[in-house]
């Protein structure tokens, strides 16, 4: 901790403070500002002056108050205790703040990210005398029923390990000593600190080759995201960005979920906090909270900490990836993060580019999404990890030409386009099937153990999409010349497209069964709808009226197939038999 001489505040303009006497300080150093000791970070240096973004409300701060440089970069604490935590944008545990300070946030309180008292049982996986380097796993802590936390050697440290032993430790107690070749000794602890602004290193970056299954039909089937992939969800207010993010946080087949509530609503975080402990991971039956880390810097909390929250989240996510985990990070909403950048930039009187955003907006967004990926982790044993990023974007007026949307679309590989029109009809998720896209479609078939079934799924998807595209064209015709002009086959296409939309794409997040659908069930559902189409087409060709087909009782069964529990999916196969029977009846009646 180096104390700079006589550093003083000279200017206060909202969240940005200028201090003099700062020569010698470094960019991105954390500083304590004023009598209240507010936490801030240096974002601009100019001779003796430093501009500081302050992570707390600056009311009551004035010129002449002291500034102290901590000499440390903005960092997070990484180690056992992260899981089930809820942090603000600079990793202060909100539950501790609540206990210490009450219901409302107060200022100037620096609370460490990890509990200092709690003891964890550490089991070494190496022995004294072993030589280790950065990223090497030296032992384990069973943190939750869903996570065995691997303890890794921090960056920049290597040497021979001594004094390592099994036992109960707090995160700051020494679990081993590492002696470098030059004789310097470093104490290893359960916890390491890591600056947030730069990506953690990896050995190799690999292309995604698997789907992150989300249980959301429109996503998995039509616009899947890869393990290690990137996706964005732009849409006007109230179209379902947050519900999509929450659904993913709940049902995604990842080991770890990091959820960053960035400049959004307080109640949405409360919702996660109250729901997740009650919901069970479908794979393990354990509460979902046991794999989740939450970062909540809501819209009314200071904007500078909002800017930081995204980095805090991604650094924690990378740390778990480095253990060899599959990690999914949701950021809701990246627009609020961009706005925080804009506000700081304006106060720094930087030259604005489009819509007042700083010229580096695109670069920052790209750098953030670049931190996603499937990787070969550094250190031994050899392992792979994957980190997927799903960012919500909230463009003004829902206008996709917005700078943040455009900068995001440049880098992400999946685009889920939410439409107000669909949301108004309560067609949820309101993901537009015609304009959304995914670059990971080819990996979908790998989800199926049976290769033929995977191939068949691909075919079903192509057929279903063709029907949806045809529907759009046909509706255009109806608008021009009326429904009468359509051929019976075309009318059937419209019916089937409606069925795909209402019976498959539409998915109620709040329905106990419908909230998530396994890949196997998605396959059964889609197959059944298209089976009906095929049989109906044959019936029409043999002279049956479309109106008769629409009246078939089995259509209601198709519509309700989404509510059939996972354990009963054989019932969906059964529906296809019923379709055959009812079609046959029709044909005998009509001939």
């Amino acid at each position, binding site marked *: 901790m180096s104390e700079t001489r006589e550093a003083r505040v000279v200017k206060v303009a909202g969240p940005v403070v200028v201090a003099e006497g700062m020569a010698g300080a470094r960019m991105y150093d954390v500083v304590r500002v004023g009598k209240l000791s507010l936490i801030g970070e240096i974002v601009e240096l100019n001779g003796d002056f430093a501009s500081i973004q302050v992570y707390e409300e600056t009311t009551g701060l004035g010129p002449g108050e002291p500034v102290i440089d901590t000499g440390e970069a903005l960092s997070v604490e990484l180690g056992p205790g992260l899981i089930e935590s809820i942090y603000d944008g600079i990793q202060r545990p909100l539950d501790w703040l609540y206990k210490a300070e009450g*219901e409302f946030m107060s200022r100037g309180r620096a609370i460490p990210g990890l509990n200092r008292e709690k003891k964890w049982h550490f089991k070494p996986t190496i022995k004294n005398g072993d030589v280790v380097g950065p990223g090497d796993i030296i032992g384990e802590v069973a943190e939750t029923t869903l996570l065995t936390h691997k303890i890794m050697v921090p960056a920049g440290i290597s040497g021979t390990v001594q004094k390592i032993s099994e036992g109960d430790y707090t995160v700051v107690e020494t679990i081993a000593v590492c002696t470098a070749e030059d004789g310097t000794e470093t104490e290893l602890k359960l916890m390491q600190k890591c600056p947030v602004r730069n990506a953690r290193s990896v050995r190799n970056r690999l292309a995604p080759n698997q789907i992150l299954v989300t249980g959301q039909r429109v996503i998995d089937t039509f616009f899947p995201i890869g393990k290690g992939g990137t996706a964005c969800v732009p849409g006007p207010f109230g179209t379902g960005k947050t519900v999509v993010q929450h659904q993913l946080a709940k049902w995604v087949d990842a080991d770890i979920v990091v959820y960053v509530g960035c400049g959004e609503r*307080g109640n949405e975080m409360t919702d996660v906090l109250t729901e997740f402990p009650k919901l069970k991971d479908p794979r393990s039956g354990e509460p979902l909270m046991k794999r989740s880390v939450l970062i909540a810097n809501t819209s*009314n909390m200071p904007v500078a900490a909002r800017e930081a929250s995204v980095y805090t989240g991604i650094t924690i996510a990378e740390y778990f990836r480095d253990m060899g985990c599959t990690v999914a990070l949701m950021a809701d909403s990246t627009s609020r993060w961009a706005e925080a950048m804009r506000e700081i930039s304006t106060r720094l009187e930087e030259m604005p580019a489009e819509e007042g955003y700083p010229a580096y907006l695109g670069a920052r967004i790209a750098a953030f999404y670049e931190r996603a990926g499937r990787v070969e982790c550094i250190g031994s044993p050899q392992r792979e990890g994957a980190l997927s990023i799903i960012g919500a974007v909230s463009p003004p007026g829902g206008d996709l030409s917005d700078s943040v949307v455009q900068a995001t679309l440049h880098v992400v590989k999946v685009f889920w386009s939410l439409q107000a029109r669909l949301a108004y009809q309560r067609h949820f998720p309101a993901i537009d099937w015609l304009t959304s896209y995914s670059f990971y479609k080819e990996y979908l078939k790998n989800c199926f153990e049976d290769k033929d079934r995977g191939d068949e799924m691909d075919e079903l998807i192509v057929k279903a999409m063709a029907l949806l595209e045809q529907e759009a064209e046909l509706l255009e015709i109806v608008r021009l010349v009326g429904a009468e002009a359509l051929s019976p086959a075309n009318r059937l296409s419209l019916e089937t497209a409606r069925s795909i939309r209402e019976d498959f794409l539409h998915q109620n997040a709040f329905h106990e069964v419908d909230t998530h659908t396994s890949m196997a069930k998605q396959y059964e559902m889609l197959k059944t709808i298209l089976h009906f189409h095929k049989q109906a087409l044959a019936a029409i060709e043999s002279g049956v009226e479309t109106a008769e087909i629409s009246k078939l009782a089995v259509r209601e069964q198709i519509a309700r197939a989404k509510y059939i529990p996972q354990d009963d999916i054989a019932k969906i196969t059964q529906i296809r038999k019923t379709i055959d029977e009812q079609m046959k009846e029709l044909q005998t009646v009509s001939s």
Partner: protein
Amino acid sequence: MLSIKEYQTVTSISGPLMMVEMVDEAKYGHIVDVELGDGSIRHGQILQVENDKVLVQVFEGTHGIDVNRSTVRFLAKPLELAVSPDILGRVFSGLGEPKDNGPAVIPDKRVDINGNPINPYARDYPNEFIQTGISTIDGLNPLVRGQKLPIFSGAGLPHDDITAQIARQATVLGGGEFAVVFAAMGITFEAAQFFIDDLQETGAIERAVMFINLANDPAIERIATPRFALTAAEYLAFDLDMHVLVILNDMTNYCEALREISAARKEVPGRRGYPGYLYTDLATIYERAGRIKGKKGSITMVPVLTMPEDDKTHPVPDLTGYITEGQIILSRSLHRKAISPPVDVLPSLSRLKDKGIGEGKTREDHADLYNQLYAAYARGKEAQELATIMGEAALSEEDKKYMLFANKFEARYVSQNYYENRSIQTTLDLGWELLSMFENAELKRIDVKLIEKYMPKFRKTNGNTSNE
């Protein structure tokens, strides 16, 4: 204690802003008194301090202030509201000063009107249904205690009638009345008086606190008004355990005042000249609604805003919608059709409904019912539109049926008298009755068991409408 320092060093005045120099000990966000040559007092707040230069926004405006004869006193504190249980029944100005000729409030404490953000961990999820007696709200977009649900209106639309109706009728099932905190920002005397008279008639005025800034009151003052109101609301809710309903009318005027300051500061303008921080600023107001763990009271907020040119994408409604937990949108075309309240059902939304309704709260069929009503009405609306383009004859039989449904739905469900207080049971039953024109098989969004349980009653009373 800091002594209050006085300066006569005003160097420049521009719009609502004033620069004072050679000041020491000025703090960001603190307030000042400005004494004019004629002895009158204005109030201001510090927007920026740089060395000894202080930028002050003057709430009452700067007209008549001169550089030479004004004295500025630095009060070394933020804007505060004096609170005690005696604020109930009182009327204050937009700057928190008594306006009803009543005595000054003897404070239990003085509270910074900016408040502090609620720790997200301390929040309790809103889940208690509020019955407003208005079907389009209770049935389709239920309001719950602790929610912020704005009304998006337009010039000449009856938002005043709706807010008055909500204030008059809002109850929680099993009893419990609301204290009302009303903040008027730049609305007409008539509109404000209408609301006050209404509270007076029902006697609710005893449990109400008003902060009134009218159209002819200083515009910059409006920046403080909602904050005074919310400070009073927080005190009533979290110190005195009351359930508080806050009505903020009209937020568009608030945003315009903010824009004026921003322009005077020559900040880079965002969309339509509003400052880039409008979202964050509005959030510091709207997010003060809510419930807190271990506290009995709650703050439910109904902000009202008028959309310029009825445009939802205008920054004020747009950014509001991004923060609030839904919105009730009024429609000019329904208003023209004389349907009142003219709630535009499809784009309206309550995001917190799901945990506030259902068995033990409203009724088990509530969720399925509104899903089905929405789906059917959306389809009916499409048919209505198609019919305006192509003529009704071009519609398929199906479409005609849905159009008929949409028309009935607007006439019976949406439309109701401003003094008609429908119980939630009445509203739900009305939904079933309207849906009874469809076959069971068409009601895909409703659980079969619920259809079997509820529908027969309505099919009977409706004879054979189900077969066209």
